[in-house]
């Protein structure tokens, strides 16, 4: 019997250890960090990035990239705010989600059927969507006056609706990913697409479905963010871009495709938001935080790369020769 080596376990749980570490550090560094008020705010902020992070995790598991998610978020937010006055919230949200789904389908089709590299395909769609957003809003911020929704979403409790939605989504999708045929087939396809095809898996349909989900979730995330702030700006999705990508990677999903973990991505999102939150409590200015953020991201991604590198070098070692 061969046991799963310690190295794997380390990689899988490293992010949770980091999360705990960050929380401890922040509570020491910033006195009010652990207060209910602050934690509620932190959780609400983090929850807005969770939905796109789930989408990105799924796409990365397939071995592909979806760089358009940030602009789709913006589009989702814009449509939600823009359509609400005339068609109410439900109509607006439905429209936003439908658009996100549609863009995702286009991405999926380009990658699966036209066999365009996903980096290129999503690069193209992101340009198109950003242009569309700018046309729609004329470069302006859109607002609505419905404070009811805002108040409902922005409750001061720890389990405000956005947080609940994020947690629910994360749990549901993690179950789907690890416990259903769809999820396992997805990871298998990411690990070795040719093998998956030869096993009879419908890899094209899988790819299209995953990209569609990513678009849908990105739009949902943007929509949620817009409703919470009851406004939408033309670049609102861009803040999520780096955070989501870094979080998904640090969370343990492999960049080559295959093994993926949504809970890990969510933990990493929370961790990164906690860092920003703690530092701003400490009174660090906007500029300082940006560079700290950048530095933290750099260190995390670097650490991941080093770890992966060392693992490659150590592949194939014989235990009996390790004197």
């Amino acid at each position: 019997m061969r046991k799963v080596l310690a190295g794997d376990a380390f990689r899988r749980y490293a992010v949770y250890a980091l999360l705990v570490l960050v929380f401890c550090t922040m509570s020491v560094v910033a006195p009010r960090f652990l207060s209910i008020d602050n934690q509620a705010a932190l959780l609400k902020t983090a929850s807005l990035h969770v939905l796109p992070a789930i989408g990105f995790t799924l796409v990365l598991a397939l071995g592909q990239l979806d760089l358009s998610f940030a602009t789709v978020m913006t589009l989702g937010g814009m449509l939600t705010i823009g359509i609400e006055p005339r068609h109410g919230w439900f109509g607006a949200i439905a429209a936003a989600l439908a658009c996100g789904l549609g863009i995702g389908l286009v991405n999926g089709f380009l990658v699966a059927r036209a066999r365009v590299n996903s980096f290129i395909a999503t690069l193209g769609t992101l340009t198109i969507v950003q242009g569309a957003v700018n046309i729609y809003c004329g470069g302006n911020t859109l607002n609505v006056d419905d404070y009811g929704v805002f108040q409902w979403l922005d409750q001061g409790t720890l389990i405000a609706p956005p947080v609940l939605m994020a947690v629910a989504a994360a749990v549901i999708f993690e179950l789907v990913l690890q416990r259903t045929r769809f999820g396992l087939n997805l990871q298998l396809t990411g690990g070795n697409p040719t093998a998956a095809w030869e096993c009879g898996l419908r890899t094209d349909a899988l790819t299209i479905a995953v990209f569609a989900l990513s678009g849908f979730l990105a739009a949902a995330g943007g929509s949620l963010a817009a409703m919470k702030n009851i406004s939408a700006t033309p670049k609102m999705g861009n803040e999520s871009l780096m955070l989501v990508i870094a979080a998904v990677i640090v969370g343990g999903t492999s960049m080559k495709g295959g093994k993926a973990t949504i809970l890990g991505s969510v933990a990493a999102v929370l961790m990164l938001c906690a860092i920003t939150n703690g530092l701003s409590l400490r009174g660090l200015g906007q500029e300082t935080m940006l560079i700290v953020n950048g530095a933290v991201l750099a260190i995390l991604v670097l650490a991941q790369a080093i770890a992966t590198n060392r693992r490659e070098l150590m592949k194939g070692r014989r235990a009996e020769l390790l004197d």
Partner: protein
Amino acid sequence: MTARYRVAPWLEGAGIYSLVVLLVLAGAVSSPGFLRPESLLGTVQNVSLLGIAATGVAFVTYSGHYADLSVPAVMALSGIVCVSSLRWGLVPAILLGVAAGVAVGIVNGLVIGRLRANPIIWTLVTAAAGSGLIRWAFSNSQAYPSTDTAAGKAFVVLFGEKVAGVPLTVLVLAAMIAAGQFLLVKTKFGARLKLTGSSYEVARMTGVDTRGIVLAVFVLSAFAASVGGILLASLNRLGAEYIGKGYDFTSVTAVVLGGVTLAGGRGNMLGVLGGVLAIGLIETVLTLNGVSVDWQEVVKGVLFIVVVGTSAYLARRQGRDDA
């Protein structure tokens, strides 16, 4: 089995020029004065900065490392460092600006070369870190060249300079394309680069210093971006953090349109020039026809996907499977 498939190098990259010709015709149709030398030069000047950045990114793509998404941050950094250093004279300021940019390139090259980090992710991280650095190190994240000093005065007109009637930026572009082409085709570095781009592993197993090659391409990319950034700052008469936004994706667009496939080892600088010209012509033709900037973005995105998708499809029909 008699398999014959010849490679016709002169054909690579030439495909984009058919699009260029089409666009020139479209332009001539749209406006009577389009074909005048001043007007054509103006079009080229509009995209000269994009072209300069694209020359650098082309090296990265050619090496099989997809793209350098830190280009906007490098442009901004070199611009702002240059502007802030004008008190020491124009030439020293330019050199400092370039040095700052190249420093980022060195970091990129080392991390991606030695740790084999994913280039897209890592350059996104350096971009974020770079932006943060600029915002933190320079108050207001902007710097204005003082027009009292001689250096300052020289700087602000730098962009508009003409040499024998040809805009300086166009000359710089031409020089960089020529130098880049020479490097690719006529030097041993270029031959090694081609091997590395075609297969990193094989290059490594042939004794090529792949880590050195990776370092070189990212330094080249940062160098080109720095030059572009300084000229861009001159155009805008200020150094700022947001200068250069959008150049990451558009330069990849130009590079890929120009026939340098993402798989690496294929294409050349003349093709990249074609890609750059195509983008410039699209913008001009659309502007002549009264299309708004946002709609132009949409058109560019659509065209990009169409062109890349079709060429990938055709390549696969012929039995090639890159990009």
